[in-house]
């Protein structure tokens, strides 16, 4: 299996402090990898590091064989990585369709296949394509955010807590969409607070603590691990 994402011994953080103290992970093609861990473990930070949003002081990040450490975010987008932030992840004053259009900003040529693909994954959005994204419910907004990122047909999709604040029904729906997207050959790395549900649905998982790797393995293995359970799954 070829690895789409390889992160080696990453050290970095905001300002002078290093939040990440040597994090390593990899994600294969068409794989869902979930990052879990207690608050402040550096989950979101690790994800932002991939996207060049913080100072990386050591280690390396490779996407599909190309080293992207220290690149500007717009070059990383061109390299086929899309990132969906946890908050303010839609253009509120633009319509659903325009949000998707912005997602495809770097693409030229006929986009109708890309729109069809996103609207097939998210039928709710097709109905509301003329609505302003800011007027949608939280779950629908999350779908717009994911749809925007998928318009670029990325190799690697990074999702920062896509289910935060959503009802269980939407959470299940978002997970199902992740599986559908994976089955089209996209690698997904996501950070999750709902560790139990996320590990149950992901192919593999990483447990971070204090800015470093603590455990890794398939979702099922991690769920069965005594130490992981004690740490934060609530016993």
């Amino acid at each position, binding site marked *: 299996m070829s690895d789409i994402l390889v992160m080696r011994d990453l050290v970095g953080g905001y300002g002078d402090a290093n939040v990440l103290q040597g994090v390593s992970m990899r994600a294969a093609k068409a794989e869902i990898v979930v990052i879990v861990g207690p608050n402040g473990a550096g989950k979101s930070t690790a994800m932002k590091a991939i*996207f060049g949003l913080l100072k990386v002081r050591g280690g390396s990040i490779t996407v599909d064989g190309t080293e992207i450490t220290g690149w500007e*975010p*717009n070059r990383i*987008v*061109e390299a086929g990585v*899309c*990132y969906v*932030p946890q908050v*303010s*992840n*839609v*253009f*509120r*004053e*633009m319509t659903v369709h*325009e949000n998707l*259009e*912005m*997602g495809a*900003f*770097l693409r030229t040529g006929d986009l109708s296949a890309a729109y069809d693909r996103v609207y097939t994954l998210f039928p709710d959005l097709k109905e509301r394509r003329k609505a302003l994204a800011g007027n949608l419910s939280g779950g629908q907004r999350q779908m717009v955010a994911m749809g*925007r990122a998928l318009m*670029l047909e990325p190799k690697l999709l990074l999702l920062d807590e896509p289910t935060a604040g959503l009802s269980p029904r939407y959470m299940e729906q978002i997970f199902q969409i992740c599986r559908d997207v994976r089955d089209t050959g996209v690698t997904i790395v996501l950070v999750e607070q709902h560790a139990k549900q996320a590990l149950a649905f992901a192919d593999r998982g990483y447990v971070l603590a204090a800015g470093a790797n603590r455990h890794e393995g398939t979702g099922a293995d991690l769920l069965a691990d005594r130490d992981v359970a004690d740490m934060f799954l609530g016993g």
Partner: protein
Amino acid sequence: MGALEIINFYLVPGIVIGSIYALGAVGITLVFSILRYAHLAHGDLATLGAFLALGAVTLGGVSPYVALPVAMVLTAAAAVMIDKAFYAYLRERPKIVTVMASLGVALMVRAIVQVVWGVDSETYTRGIVRPDVWFGIRLRDRELITIFAMIGLVLALHVFLQQSKWGKAMRAMSDNPDLALLSGVDNKKVVMLTWIIVGGLCAAAGVFLGLNYELKAMMGWTMLLPMFAAAILGGVGRVEGAVLGGLIVGIAEEMSTLFLPTEYKAATAFAILLLMLLVRPTGLLKGKVL
């Protein structure tokens, strides 16, 4: 006083000056919603545009209407250069630093105008223009052209922002700058495009002010307060609001001379601004992003 007198001596001049304010206020609102600071050199950029058109009229012997697009292009270029020379370095600093820098740029641009064209009043054309009479309403060609040019420019801007790829990128940058960057929008190009549009609009405001009144080195600076009042009145970030605000401020200024001495005209804009900030700080059309 009959209705026709009110229309001829107060409403028509109000709509004309209001259209000029609208052109300026649209630019102010664009800068505010995309670059997120109040641009105090806006009026003097309009002065520069007016005098660049004067240069084309005197040197090229063309009519002011031919000089208008020339002045718009030159002022757009000047706006881009000012941004690169002064504001670009301050982009990461607190916005108030850029606001203060723009005050310095205002003084500098005005000084250049005074050095090149002198401090006396100038006009594009000499002689008195007789107005045409339409059902008792007296309109000069230049007044009609001012109003229609404003409508045309604003409509063109609206279509650009709503329909074109880069117009949408400008709206995206105003809506959520971080997400626009994550979508691959080149921030620098959006900033440059914004200054091209704002420079062009400034020049149009200046040329029409010079056409309907006269050209003076202080013409733009005195227009700054009514333009800001118009932008705030309409709701910052709303192009259509800036037009509405410009017309209201312009008409209110002219109408105020019915009750108040003419010297208080400028105070009317200030009064409207204060009243609006007290009663409805978000503006008539609720302020938002583009």
